[in-house]
């Protein structure tokens, strides 16, 4: 609980509490990995149980998915740039790239919601079959994480504007950065094992 500051480190690592929080967040991501692994496991068990309802090929819009993927990938990249700017002590650059990230993230979210609406119009709902239950919950959990990330990032931006770059705000920014990249990692696997596999199989 000491508030000693070590100036040789990047801002977000300077205080003891910051280092604790960052490690804690990594551990939390470990738990998130297990959480998503379980959802993937459930999907892996149920993905052929269509119960007479629509199949992958009936509902997936692969073009839209590709666009979604590019949006999220790019947002992960711009988030990286934002943290890079933070390390250079560039508050303006940091905020600029954060906002870009959020825009891209919102674009992703918008398309995902559209995708869901499209599914429901095709008669593919969470209640239709085990396959669709597992699909909606896997995608939905990821989408909920993105939504949460967006709200959270807005909070961080407000604090950056109000307080500037301090060890505390830097830590918060750094952690949301980790979170955002993590969501991209999860998406890569959704893209591969849900969409691409669904189109092939």
């Amino acid at each position, binding site marked *: 609980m000491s508030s000693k500051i070590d100036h040789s480190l990047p801002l977000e690592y300077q205080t003891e509490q910051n280092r604790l929080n960052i490690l*804690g967040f990594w551990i939390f991501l470990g738990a998130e990995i297990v959480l998503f692994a379980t959802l993937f496991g459930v999907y892996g068990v149920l993905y052929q149980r269509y119960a007479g309802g629509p199949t992958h090929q009936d509902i997936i819009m692969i073009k839209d998915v590709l666009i979604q993927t590019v949006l999220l990938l790019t947002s992960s990249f711009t988030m990286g740039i934002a943290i890079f700017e933070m390390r250079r002590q560039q508050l303006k650059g940091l905020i600029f790239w954060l906002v870009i990230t959020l825009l891209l993230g919102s674009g992703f979210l918008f398309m995902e919601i559209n995708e869901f609406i499209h599914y429901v119009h095709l008669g593919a709902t969470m209640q239709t079959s085990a396959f669709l239950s597992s699909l909606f919950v896997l995608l939905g959990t990821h989408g909920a994480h993105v939504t949460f990330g967006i709200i959270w990032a807005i909070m961080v931006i407000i604090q950056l504007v109000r307080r500037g770059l301090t060890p505390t705000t830097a830590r918060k920014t750094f952690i949301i950065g980790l979170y955002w990249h993590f969501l991209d990692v999860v998406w890569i696997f959704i893209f591969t094992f849900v969409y691409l596999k669904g189109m092939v199989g």
Partner: protein
Amino acid sequence: MGIKWNEFFITGDPLILGSQIAIVLTMVGIVAGVTYLKKWKWLWSEWITTVDHKRIGIMYIISGVLMFFRGGMDGLLMKAQTSRPEMEFLDAQHYNEIFTTHGVIMILFMAMPMLIGIMNVVVPLQIGARDVAFPQLNALSFWLFFGGAMLFNISFVIGGSPDAGWTSYFPLAGKEFSPGIGNNYYAVALQIAGIGTLLSGINFVVTILKMRTKGMTLMKMPMFTWTSFIASVIIIAAFPIFTVALALMTFDRLYGAHFFTLSGGGLDMLWANLFWLWGHPEVYILVLPAFGIYSEIISTFSRKTLFGYKSMVLSILIIAFLSMVVWVHHFYTMGSGPAVNSIFSITTMAIAVPTGIKIFNWLFTMRKGRIKMTNAMLWSLAFVPCFIIGGVTGVMLGMGAADYQYHNTLFLVAHFHYTIIPGVVFAVFAALYYWWPKMFGFTLNEKIGRWHFWLFVIGFNATFMPMFFLGLDGAVRRSYTYSVESGFAPLFLVSAIGSVILALGFFAFCYNIYWSIRHADRNITGDPWNARTLEWATASPVQPYNFAKLPEVDGLDPFWKMKKNNEGLTIKDSDIEEIHMPSNSGLPFFMGVVFGVAGFFLVFEWHIAAAIAAIGIIAGLIYRSFDYDEGYHIPVDEIKETESKWRNVEGEVHNYVK
């Protein structure tokens, strides 16, 4: 929403009416008592908003004891019902509700909080830290657990209890076969408590990794810290699975999804799979900290350092690894084929090896020692033979083909009471006798403790030993009755009598607490047992900042060495510096309440109300994000005063063990 009040409150049953009245009276009594004593403010500022790990630990333990009453009462009711063949004390529905809540409450709301409570009190002290890594998060964990526990407990009187077993297998637990909301309580309340547990796990991993005092490398950590660490790691690896499983259960039950249902392509086996992917590691989450407790106590009262420290550490690592890959042994009979069953038989039996290493190391810690029979030590001694019976019957269950005959019989019930009660309940008792002075500044009475010990141990064996034989004779679990012709009656009666003795033992424990609060000697040092680890190097009860000056360590049993070499026991005024402390916060309590309320609405399937309540959760998170409270500092003078108070006591001080 059109509430039907006659459905809302369970009515028409004297048993439930009785407990409803009891609950209302208790609540009125508590409120009246606190008001009369003008303790509201004290309660709020000293306990409800506290972020002090020791107080949070104590609150966990108190909740655990309360839940032990509830769970134990359930156990006694079941034993009463099966004491004679064709009893009509409880009907099937009641029996089902009672073993379900018994299992859930004992494991998740009794054993878990007891152990997490003890971890909270002890671990930061053992590693020479001022608190855990995230004190506010720690409070949040507690209040989430508490909110979940309360939500689960009201099910008995409001809305209906879950009744599908603590395992709540589908399709039985689905809406097709359990249309009442009882099982919603299971899904939602456990979810809330589970999130709290997960956060605790993260907190302890970071605490133990980063906040050890100078010189305490990983391989110099006390064994209880090690086992708490590994248990936390397992929590992080296993609880997210439970989170998902419960969420999917909620989707099935509340929104008509098809994960585990009979219709729509759902797969009931998947629930069993997910449940045990979490459920098996869960039993090792329980038993590992208990192993740590025994290690500390056996070493202290044998006056020897722990035998084979390195192999102890290695064996818990192996147990942790294996605990993740044995879950299928709970459903060998599901027909996954001989290949699957063979692999999981092997991994299951393999756990006997590291556990055996631990047992032998304990035995050899005692060898050549001077074994002091305190109550804490007696519990640790009784653990060894009782747990071995549980363990070897576990290995018998682990043999897939043989399990076809044991599965779902009372043999299995006997096995797990023989592992859980010696493995967890004995450990909790041992820990309470051992660390009680650390928490409260006085020891529990040893004489009354003897009554507690003998009654409980004898009662325990008498209750559960007959069940092995009942099981081998074909008596199944979860059956509320049996016929006269079955021939089960004599053994069931022995078992029922045993449970009464068990209850008397527990009663002796409660009396001991009462007696000791009133009469025990308050003039004790920080080190009543002549112990070995750092928590004894500071005052009893521990001052808020734990250590005026953080100790330095260069080996195992650091406090023992300090005493031997007579160094580091006193403190110079010049060493004392200001200490930074985190501020109290009401937010964790608020979050617990909001989660509880939102959960309640969700249980009753009032989705809009639940969504509105959930806004409170978001609000709490946002508030936290903008909270820049930096804590406060305890000034040097205050520390000096506190320190001299316990270091230079006037008059004689008493040690239990010299």
